[in-house]
Structure formats: C-alpha cells, structure tokens
C-alpha cells in the first residue's frame, strides 16, 4: 500500500506470467489470477535475467515463402507416392493428376525458396557442395533428385495428354521407357523430401524448433501425407481415390498423435509458442481442419463433392501446420525467455545429476 498520489495512475494489474507446467511451480504459494487481491510485483518475476529483454539467438530471416515451401514440398513428396501407387495399380487418372500436382507444387515451392534467398541470383551456389552437416544442402540434393524423376514423368504425361504431339522425335520411346523407373526414383526421394524440412528447422538454435527435434519429422510427413491425399481427392474422381482416402486418414491420425507426442517431449517453456498468439491459433485451426477433413473423408469420401471439400480442408490444415510451426519458432527466437529458461533448466538438471564438467561457464 502506497500513499503516493502517483499510484492512482498505476496501470491495471496484469496477470502473472507463469509456467504452464504446474509441477514446476514449487514454492510459489497458491495460484490465482490477477484479481487485485494480492500485491502487484513492481519488478517482473525473477524467473530469469536477460540483457534488456533482447533476444539471445537471432530468428532465421525466413518469411512466408519458406513456410509455403514447407507445405508445397510436402504436397510434392506425398503426391509422388500416390503417383507411383497409381502407376503400379493402373489408376491412370490418379497417376496423372498426382504427377501434375507434384510437379506444380515443386515448381511453386522451389520458386518460393529462391525468392526468399538474400541473393536469389546465386541460388545455384546450393549445388557447389555436398555437405551432410547441412540439412539445407542435403535438402537441395533431395529436391534435385526428386525433381529430375518427377520432371521425366510429367514430360511423359504431357506428351500423352497432347496426343504425342511434343517434338520428341526418336526420344519418344526412350521417354516412355524411362517413365516408369523415373516415377520409382522420384518416389524414393519423396519421403526424404517431406521429412528433411523438419531436420532443417530442428538443426538450429531456435528454441522451439530445436526442442521439437525428436518428433517434428513425424509431424511433417503426416502433414505431407494428408495434404497430398487431400489434393488427389480434389483432382481425381472418387473411384480412383480409395488409396488417397486411406492415406488421408492415416495422415490425420499420424498428425494428431505425432503433434501430441512432440509437445509432450519438449521443454514446457520452449513449447509455449506453439500455443500462444497467432502461431497457436494457426496450429489449433490446423488440428480442427485435419479432424474435419479426416472425418469427411471417412464418412463421405465416396461422394465427389464431400471428397473435394474434405481435401481442401486437409490441404488447409497442412498449410496451417507449416506456417504455425515456422512462426512459433521465429517467435521463440525473439523472446530471450525461451532461450534462457530451458538452457538454465537443463544446466541445473545436469548439475543436479552430478555432471559439472560441461558448463560453458567455469570458475577457472
């Protein structure tokens, strides 16, 4: 209680910022909201100190283009698997549409990636090394190998769709002969294409991405599966999309399970950005749309219109997952709390376990 008249200008009491995890709130007394019944702290809770609240790590300079690429790369990869399935089981419309969808997604995604570079004219520098320690380098090679295979299959499709009018000359039989193997080759790189982006994000110092490193790949491949299945359900008649519907349902189940497992294993502080603000809303909607799309597929997938609407919901769910995860990571880098608290916690945990020789801070 203060007698100063200036206290009448005090702002309304903000809710105290606390960790979500109840188990960690040792010794902080009974909980309670900002009901005005208790003393308001004049300084922020001393949970951690930072340098004027400035970030410790820098967020990647990645905009929406990269999130769009994460989504489109997944669609391209999943569609290649559907195309191979169509190729092997004689579902011609599914094969053709999935191939076209895959290459379109790949081209758009690649363009988005190049656009996001600081020096787009140097994009080919990506191919001057083969560097296993760099997920971006590995991804470039996966993308190139995948693109080569898909390119061949789509050239064959285009030739077939135009009634063999492409000026191929003696190369036409060659194209027809390599079309099948090229589809298999692309499918080999489809899974890695959908999964490597998770490693790309996790192999950074960005707290939320790095903490998700165990399970983010499972979220991403599930998301890629349901999105590519959704695209096939939009583009292809229902009598050929039975496998796509099953893949969609598997993808939705995988997405829901993997997301929960991932968040459960993350440091609770580093997982917070996945639930807060705009990224939190995007991820929540992603889940709702995935469930809705999955149910629609399961219950009405044999109806063309229902299948198309469900497919659109699945595509939107996948896009929201990627945008949400990307933005949550960027936010976690902008607030020093997400860097410092998990690091202090793990350092303290190691010290408590008797490991005292691996701290960057030493007494001498």
């Amino acid at each position, binding site marked *: 209680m203060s007698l100063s008249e200036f206290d009448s200008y005090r702002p309304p009491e903000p809710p105290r910022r606390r960790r979500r995890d109840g188990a960690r709130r040792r010794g902080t007394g009974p909980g309670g909201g900002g009901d005005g019944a208790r003393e308001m702290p004049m300084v922020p809770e001393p949970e951690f*100190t930072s340098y004027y609240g400035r970030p410790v790590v820098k967020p990647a300079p990645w905009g929406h283009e990269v999130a769009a690429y994460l989504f489109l790369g997944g669609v391209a990869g999943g569609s290649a698997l559907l195309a191979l399935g169509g190729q092997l089981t004689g579902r011609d419309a599914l094969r053709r549409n999935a191939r076209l969808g895959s290459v379109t997604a790949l081209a758009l995604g690649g363009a988005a990636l190049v656009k996001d570079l600081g020096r787009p004219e140097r994009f080919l520098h990506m191919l001057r090394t083969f560097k296993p320690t760099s997920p971006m380098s590995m991804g470039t090679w996966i993308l190139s190998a995948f693109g080569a295979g898909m390119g061949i299959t789509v050239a064959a499709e285009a030739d077939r769709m135009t009634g063999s009018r492409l000026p191929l000359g003696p190369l036409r039989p060659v194209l027809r002969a390599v079309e099948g193997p090229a589809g298999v080759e692309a499918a080999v790189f489809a899974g890695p294409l959908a*999964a490597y982006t998770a490693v*790309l994000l996790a192999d950074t110092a960005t707290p939320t991405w790095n903490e998700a490193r165990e399970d983010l*790949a499972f979220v991403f*491949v599930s998301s890629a599966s349901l999105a590519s299945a959704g695209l096939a359900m939009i583009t292809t008649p229902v009598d050929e999309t039975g496998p796509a519907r099953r893949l969609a349902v598997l993808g939705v189940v995988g997405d829901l399970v993997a997301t929960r497992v991932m968040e459960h294993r993350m440091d609770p502080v580093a997982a917070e950005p996945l639930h807060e603000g705009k990224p939190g809303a995007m991820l929540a909607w992603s889940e709702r749309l995935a469930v809705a799309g999955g149910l629609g597929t399961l219950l009405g997938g044999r109806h063309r219109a229902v299948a198309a609407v469900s497919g659109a919901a699945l595509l939107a769910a996948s896009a929201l997952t990627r945008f949400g995860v990307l933005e949550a990571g960027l936010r976690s880098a902008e607030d020093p709390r997400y860097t410092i608290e998990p*690091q202090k916690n793990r350092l303290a945990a190691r010290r408590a376990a008797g490991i005292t020789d691996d701290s960057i801070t030493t007494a001498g």
Partner: protein
Amino acid sequence: MGQLAGPTDPAADAHWEHQHPRKGFFTDTSICIGCKACEVACKEWNQNPQDGDLQLLESSYDNTGALGASTWRHVAFVEQDGERIEEARESGRALVSLGMPRVGPPEARAAAEPGDSTPPDTPEFRWLMSSDVCKHCTHAGCLDVCPTGALFRTEHGTVVVQDDICNGCGTCVAGCPFGVIERRTDGTAAPRTEREGRPGSEPAVPNVGVAQKCTLCYDRMVDDQTPACAQTCPTTSIKYGDHDDMVDQARQRVAEMHAQGRTEARLYGANELDGVGGTGSVFLLLDEPEVYGLPPDPRVPTADLPRMYRRAGLAAAGMLAAAAVAFVGGRS
C-alpha cells in the same frame, strides 16, 4: 565429415595440412571501460555500414543494441545495485564449490597479494561493460549448416564468410547458438535510388543480402597483424593471440581475482567440454552470462544431427509404409 561435438582442434578437423596455431580473443570484461573504441575500429577496418537508425535505446550507454550483420563488436552496459553484486559473487562462489576444473597454475594463485581480500570496487553500484564478439566456436553451428560452403574454417581455426559465395539463405542465422551472424539488409529507409550512389559506383552498403559476421580480421591475421578491436583497445581488455595462451591468461586472471575476493569473476567459453567444444573467443565475466545477453548453456545444434537424420529417416519410411498400406490394404 569432421567431428560434430567434443574437444578437437578445429583447423586439423577441417583438414588443414599446414599447422597454424589456433588464434582467438580473450576479452577481460573486468578492465573494460566501455569506450567502444573496439566498435569503432571494427567498423572502420571492415568498412561496415551503419546499423539501423541512430537511436537512443534506453539501455544505459549501449545504443548499439546487439551483434549483427554490420556490428561485429558490441559493448554491453549493465547497471547493477549492491544486492545484485552480492548475488553475482554468490553464484561465482557456487561455481567454485561445484568443483569446476581449475587448471590455472597454482603459483599464480599463490603469488596474489595475501592479506586484504575485500573487493576493491564500489559496494553499492557497479557498471558491467563487456565487448561481445563472434565466439569462433570449435563446433560452429553457422558453419555446419551452411549449404553453399560460403562459411569456412580458416587455417587459424576461425570461421569466416566468403562474401562472393553466400547466397543469403539465412540458415546460419538460425544455426548460431549465440545470435551473432546475421543476413545484411540495406539497413536504411532511404529510397534505393539515393542509397546506391551513382550508377556503376560501389553501392553504399556492400554485401547486401549476404550473411556477415566477425572474421577475427582474417585479412590482418594472415599478415601477422592484430585484429582492429584488440589493437585499439586502450585498456587491453581485448587480448588477441594463440588460443591456448588466451585460455591460460584467462585462467590466471580469474584465479587472481578470486584471490582478491572477487568471486563473481568466471570464465565463459574456456571449457572444451561445453556444448560448442569451447569457443575461440574466451570471456571473463563478472555475472551470469545471460546478464550480458549470452546463452547460459549453448549447444551446437549439429551435435544432435545424426539422431535427427535417423528420426527423419524413420519418419520417411513411415510415410512410405503408410502409402503402401493405403494402396495394398483394403482393395476397394
């Protein structure tokens, strides 16, 4: 592929055939006076452009903000009261009682003045000043994740960007556990026509769109010159030399300060068992690292990369299996 974690000689790990000693900084923040001459010398020598607008940031005398693409030395200013000083002293003492390795030569500790062990500085208030710089890690996150090979390990064990190779993908920015490297933007709000100068002339801001950071003055180093910041530092707070010598000096200095009762002194980056394999730039700090904006337990993300690849491989196999089940499972 070199070693991903643990103690190593980074230049040898990068397959340099000629043996050069690893070079590094020792920044002794206890004798930094916050003059920012290092910031100025760095900008002058490396011809780095202005970073943002000229603004007062309301953070003591620090109006630079943070390390970045065009700021390769950054002097931090922290103002602390007596209570906080005591806390720092206590946390430093806790480090000692944890049995942290003390490799400093015992004679240096014995030689410190016996008798009066009261800390010499003002008890009610202190200013922490620290010149931060790229750590030139033994296992550098930025270098590991760079897809173009633009970042490379020099023969002196430092990490340098090749401006003409980098395509500005930005992966290194996220890969650095210390938030040092950054992609350079033009940094000004002026219209492009005014910014670029005359057509055909050098643009006002070089290397726009490319990742930039401290090179430990590679161009000076290959000529046996001291980096600009260390050369200009009036109090020798920034020392430059062979990495091993720097670590030895740092250990002697911290032992000396502890003997004076200043237990708040501690080293940052001198332990090769830490998450980045030890840093090339070693610091003597007077409080917890996060007070200076440094991460308390940095870990190079690539250390976990093999595991991440395995998990991603498993996920990709799972996706393939799901697709196979979708086609082979209930044939409808």
